[in-house]
C-alpha cells in the first residue's frame, strides 16, 4: 500500500514491513479532471500526503463553483478526510496549508468543525484568510 512518509509526498511501499495502510483519493479540478492523488493514513487520517504536490485541498474543485458560496454560505472545512467522507464530501480538507491559504484567500467564508478548529484554521491560513471570515457552528461555541 501507500507509504505516507516522508511528508508531504507519498510513494508506494515496495517491501514487506514498509509503509502503512492508506486510502488514496483522487482530487479533481473544477472540470472534474484529475489533479493529484492524496494519500491519508487509515490509522491516523490527519496524516496526509500528496503524490505530485499539485493539490492543496481535498474537494478543491468546488472552490471554482459559484454555487459553493451562494447566498454568502461558507464552505465547510473538515479536520480530516473521514469527517469529509461522513458528510458526503460536502466541503474541503486542507492537504497543504500554504497552497490552501492561497486558494481560500478570496473565499467569502469558511466554516470550521467547531470553535477550536476555527482558531486552528485562523492561525494556519493567516495572513491570506482573515480570521473574521472563519466561522463555527454556534452550538459548538456554546459548548466550548
Amino acid at each position, binding site marked *: *500500500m501507500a507509504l505516507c512518509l516522508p511528508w508531504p509526498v507519498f510513494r508506494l511501499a515496495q517491501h514487506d514491513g514498509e509503509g502503512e*495502510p492508506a486510502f*488514496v483519493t483522487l482530487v479533481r479540478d473544477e472540470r472534474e479532471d484529475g489533479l493529484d492523488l492524496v494519500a491519508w493514513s487509515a490509522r491516523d487520517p490527519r496524516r496526509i500526503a500528496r503524490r505530485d504536490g499539485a493539490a492543496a485541498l481535498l474537494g478543491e474543485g468546488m472552490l471554482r463553483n459559484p454555487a459553493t458560496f451562494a447566498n454568502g454560505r461558507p464552505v465547510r472545512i473538515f479536520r480530516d478526510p473521514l469527517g469529509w467522507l461522513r458528510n458526503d464530501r460536502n466541503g474541503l480538507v486542507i492537504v497543504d496549508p500554504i497552497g490552501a491559504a492561497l486558494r481560500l484567500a478570496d473565499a467569502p467564508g469558511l466554516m470550521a468543525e467547531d470553535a477550536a478548529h476555527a482558531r486552528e484554521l485562523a492561525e494556519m491560513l493567516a495572513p491570506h484568510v482573515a480570521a473574521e471570515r472563519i466561522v463555527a457552528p454556534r452550538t459548538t461555541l456554546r459548548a466550548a
Partner: protein
Amino acid sequence: MTSLPLLVITIGDIRVRYFAHPDGGPDWPWLAMGDVLRLTRFEHRTQAAFATIAPEEAREVISDDGPVRIVPDWYAYATIETAINFGRVHPGDLDLLKQGTRLALAVLLAEVPVEDWGAWFAAVDARPIVDLREVAP
C-alpha cells in the same frame, strides 16, 4: 439475533452483502467490510492490514454464516476508490456497488410507508448537515 442481508449482489466473482443499520434506525445501507476488501483485489496481506482498521462507526452483526463487520457506504466507497486509483479495480465496479446501495435502499424503504419517506430521509440527512442559521463568527 441474526441479521440477514438486505441484498446480496455479485460483482465479477465477488459477493457483496448489504445490511440495514445495526440499530435499525434510518440510514443508508451498510456493507460487509470483508466483501468490500475482497472486491479491492489487493493482495491478501494488504487486505489483512485494512481489515484491522475500521471507522468508529463500524459494527459487527451475526449473519447466517457467522459474524460480519459492517461499515457505512461512504467508507466502502473510499476503500474501492483507493483500489481504483491503484489500478486494481475498474471504475465500473464502484458504479455497480452504488447501484447495489440504491437497490438495498429500495428493500429498506419497502418496509416504510410511503407517507413516512420524507421523515425517513430527513432523519438520515439530519445527522451530517449543520443548520447554517446556527453559524457564528
